[in-house]
């Protein structure tokens, strides 16, 4: 099925160690290049079987899943929960230093369900986006609120902030949800000191702007294009890379004829002004809800004989798009999901081959499902192996497109769907090691249910992640062999990190089952409806000598 087959492997260039974390886990993706890789190697392939829990932190916010990436800085962990509670925790003892609870209006409707994927910490401040679409800045020492700004009224737009902010220099950049609602998406930057608006980039161009002609009629006003995850940043190029979500209505495009820019695109913006430097659209006129929402991993690799600055982004369809991040030029595409029929493939120029679209009033089986060939939970890149580690999901859906009236701020899906098993086998997932540019697979680890937690890679040649049944486990980065596992008592939907304090390496993982995609599992596995919810941070280390 794969349209692209490369024989060469990409060779890691020297500068590639830049994306590693050290004692701290300072940012959402580790560093702003989003590798989710740590240079710490105290815990490694030979001793990982001795790993044991040292403390557990129960947040008490048990509905919606604990989806965060904890930030670890100078011996303190900053953790946010589904309903925007923030904790500062002593990274060695697990003692609470302070807590902050965002005062949420009881009457708030949360179309996409509660959830929060993390805070950003910079200098003396902690920043978080909220379910009612505000951004708050807290004092890092005390947790006291410093400023709060409402990005747009969530009662009107139906949007929330669930992604972690990205701090670039003196700006806090945040995206919003509402890509499956009648809403026009944007990305906004605020001044870190004062909370004042710094810039806004509309992901759907307005009248008179280039790209506006890619939307028929008034469809641009309600066209989605949400920015619900976290972007990456290249300080040398001073570019912020943000992935833009699907157009709305998701499954029906008859009222929004055209390519629908900049949905399903990677946009590269000047970090200071928010001006568009380049864009690359992965799926013109998407009718499958296949956002370009997930991480953009920034890699400097030798490719076809010359050093390239690349960007590796996983689209929700399961296709990984590799671009030149200096200009947006397409380099390659490959799929992490084996079951796909929404297209036949992607050609050498990045064009879709053989689109297979949902049809009005007719039920069709399309793969992968709306849950994605992968969910948002991030992959990791190890410069030691030169491989990208990420999950693939094998599931399909019966989908029926329908025409809906857009009502500002309300759900606008343009269809219904029901998950089904792929033809010839039971739905399942797998975690694999790939060459990041060619997609050549080096090993695979198969799981019964959908793996919906992020991946952590370390210089100990270990790959960590957790599963819906509560197991947190370590695989050998070179072979995929399972070396260690621990039952945390709750399913995994967050992102594990590692840090070191006083010479001891710790591995921290959120546990806490929940979220929109997690809830879909019961359509395939009835028992999944009763998977327990929870919300705790588990921290592991080697026994002290």
């Amino acid at each position, binding site marked *: 099925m794969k349209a692209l087959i490369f024989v060469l492997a990409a060779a890691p260039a020297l500068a590639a160690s830049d994306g590693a974390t050290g004692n701290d886990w300072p940012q959402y993706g580790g560093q702003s290049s989003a590798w989710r890789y740590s240079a710490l190697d105290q815990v490694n392939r030979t001793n990982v079987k001795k790993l044991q829990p040292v403390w557990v932190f129960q947040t008490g916010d048990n509905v919606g899943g604990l989806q965060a990436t904890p930030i670890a800085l100078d011996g303190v962990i900053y953790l946010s929960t589904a309903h925007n509670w923030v904790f500062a925790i002593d990274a060695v003892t697990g003692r609470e230093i302070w807590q902050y609870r965002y005062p949420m209006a009881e009457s708030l409707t949360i179309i996409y369900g509660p959830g929060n994927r993390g805070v950003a910490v910079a200098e003396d401040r902690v920043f978080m986006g909220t379910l009612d679409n505000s951004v708050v800045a807290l004092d890092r020492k005390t947790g006291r609120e410093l400023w709060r700004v409402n990005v747009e009224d969530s009662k*009107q737009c139906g949007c929330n902030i669930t992604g972690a902010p990205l701090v670039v220099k003196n700006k806090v950049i945040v995206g919003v949800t509402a890509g499956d609602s009648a809403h026009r998406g944007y990305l906004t930057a605020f001044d870190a000191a004062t909370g004042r608006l710094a810039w806004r980039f509309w992901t759907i161009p307005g009248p008179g702007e280039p790209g506006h002609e890619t939307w028929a009629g008034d469809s641009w006003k309600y066209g989605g294009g949400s920015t619900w995850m976290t972007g990456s940043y290249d300080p040398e190029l001073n570019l912020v890379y943000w992935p833009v979500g699907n157009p709305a209505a998701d499954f029906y495009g008859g009222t929004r004829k055209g390519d629908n820019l900049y949905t399903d695109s990677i946009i590269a913006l000047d970090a200071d002004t928010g001006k568009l430097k380049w864009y690359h659209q992965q799926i013109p006129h998407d009718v499958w809800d296949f956002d370009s929402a997930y991480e953009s991993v920034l890699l400097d690799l030798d490719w076809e004989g010359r050093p390239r600055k690349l960007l590796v982004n996983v689209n929700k369809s399961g296709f990984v798009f590799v671009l030149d991040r200096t200009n947006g030029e397409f380099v390659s595409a490959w799929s992490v999901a084996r079951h796909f029929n929404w297209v036949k493939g992607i050609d050498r120029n990045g064009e879709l081959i053989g689109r297979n679209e949902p049809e009005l009033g007719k039920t069709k089986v399309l793969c992968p499902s709306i849950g994605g060939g992968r969910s948002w939970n991030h992959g990791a890149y190890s410069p030691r192996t030169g491989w990208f580690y990420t999950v693939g999901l094998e599931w399909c859906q019966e989908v029926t497109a329908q025409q809906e009236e857009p009502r500002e701020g309300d759900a606008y899906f343009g269809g219904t769907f029901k998950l089904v098993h792929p033809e010839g086998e039971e739905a399942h997932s797998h975690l694999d090691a790939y060459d990041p540019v060619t997609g050549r697979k080096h090993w695979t680890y198969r799981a019964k249910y959908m793996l919906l937690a992020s991946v952590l890679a370390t210089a100990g040649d270990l790959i960590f992640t957790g599963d819906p049944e509560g197991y947190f486990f370590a695989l050998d980065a070179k072979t995929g062999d399972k070396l260690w596992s621990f039952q945390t008592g709750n399913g995994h939907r967050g992102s594990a990190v590692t840090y070191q304090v006083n010479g001891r390496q710790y591995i921290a993982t959120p546990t806490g089952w929940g979220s929109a995609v997690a809830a879909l599992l019961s359509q395939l596995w009835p028992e999944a409806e009763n998977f327990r919810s929870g919300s705790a941070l588990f921290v592991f280390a080697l026994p002290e000598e």
Partner: protein
Amino acid sequence: MLWLTLLLLAQAAPAPVEVAPGAAVFARTCAVGYCHGTGGAAGRAPRIQGRTFARDYLRKVVLEGIPSTGMPAWKGKLSDEEVDAVVAFMMSVATPGPSGPAAAPRAIVAAPSDREMPPEARRGRELFFDAGRIARCGTCHLLENRGMAIGPNPASPPPKSASDLRKALPREVGLARLTNGEQFPALLVERKDALVRLYDLTAAPPVLRTVSGAEAAFSKPAAWSHGQAVSDYADAELEAVIAYLQWVAGP
């Protein structure tokens, strides 16, 4: 004759004819996206199929929604008939609950504000909540349960002219001066526990700042005019907005 049919319908168990339109409403409204799944098979929102519900409960939830969750209130968005139909459909796929499958008395569904709205006021409402403007009226004012209640209720009383809106003298807005040298036009929200909370009105959207009382001085008046807040609107647009505010204020 029609009367008789209605009576009969109310007494008999729900006739299958009631279910078909409800299935369509359900598909269009409830089964979409990550919500209740095709036919109520569950999505991110709970399963309906095979669960036990009281009809009254379903009706109440459909109309009022469930706060702090993804379940919106459909009052005013679905018609009376549609609500009846969708509840009937859900009862047909659910297991009958305590109040049984028999039709419960019809609740009175409040229609959306059906007071006659002149076209100019309608255009004004669109402008008031125009999503394309960051500094729209709704960024600072709440009306019809939309927008942010930062400034006062703008419809009591409604302004008379565009120049009223531009020239309105600040009554509540003052000048905040912080010991770090910052100065900005501000709206005082509260003083509590040696802290001061105030909105910084320098630009839209306003920023709610919390500073220690010792670090902030607040005094009136400020060199601020409402004209700055409404500078994204042309006079003709403001006239339409005023027609809307007058409509809200009522006769």
